């Protein structure tokens, strides 16, 4: 007998809101949506996850670095 596919717990209830974005912001959102193959909602959701994580780590006293893949050169992203 085959194992059954697990069903995920019911997703949390969601609320709808209207975003007021400038043309440039909407353009950036649409470009990210196309690049990442995600809906605009999913892009915003992902941005929120990253923003929250960076904010928490920053408040915990950690620094954020970008490292160049080949040169391994590091550059700190200043969060003020």
């Amino acid at each position, binding site marked *: 007998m085959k*194992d059954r596919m697990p069903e*995920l717990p019911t997703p949390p209830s969601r609320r709808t809101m209207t975003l007021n974005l400038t043309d440039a912001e909407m353009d950036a959102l649409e470009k990210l949506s196309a690049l990442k193959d995600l*809906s605009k909602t999913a892009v915003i959701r992902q941005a929120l*996850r990253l923003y929250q*994580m960076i904010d928490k780590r920053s408040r915990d006293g950690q620094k954020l670095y970008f490292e160049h893949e080949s040169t391994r050169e590091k550059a700190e992203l200043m969060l003020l």
Partner: protein
Amino acid sequence: MEVSKIHLRRVRDGTLVAADLFDDIADEHLAMWERSWLPAMRVALADFRRRHVPRDRWPQDLHWNWREKAVSARGLLGQQGFAIVCEERLQGMMQLNLTKTSRLPQQRGKEIAYIEFLAAAPWNRAELIREREFAGVGKILMRVAVEVSVAQEFKGRIGLHSLPQADAFYEKCGMTSLGADPRYEGRLTYFEMTAAQAVHFCTV
């Protein structure tokens, strides 16, 4: 915390047993980990020592502190924990990170569900116990990771760093190995599953 019904296969008689899948690693699960999982690991370790089993064959997740991992992830939208409970015992846990992107050339930069930690309880592991209670706990947690990835529009893409003892398991799951990761001094192998591999994994 939400819960859904899944089924685990009992090794002894092959029957499917109803189990609960929780979308969080809550205090009750951590209490179970401390009460029964950790002592069972210690018993297994003592047995390994007594039988002079070489250190490289000891469970490589011995040092994982699930309380620290779960507590540090609380409140973060990019982190999601899962716990499986069956017959009032904790059977497995997984911690997902939803803030990582793919390294595979064909899906580079696309979001993945990254498995930070995944483990079956000691009584479900063939290397620790003569007769396991339930089989397939790791595979079910892998499927949960794929389902989360799909739900987040990541198309089933997942990634993880594997302990050497688990490499064969992830290869069997159909994941692509990107080799030993120099960021972990080559101790861990990085694996990814593409959308197509996820479909295959969930249908075979």
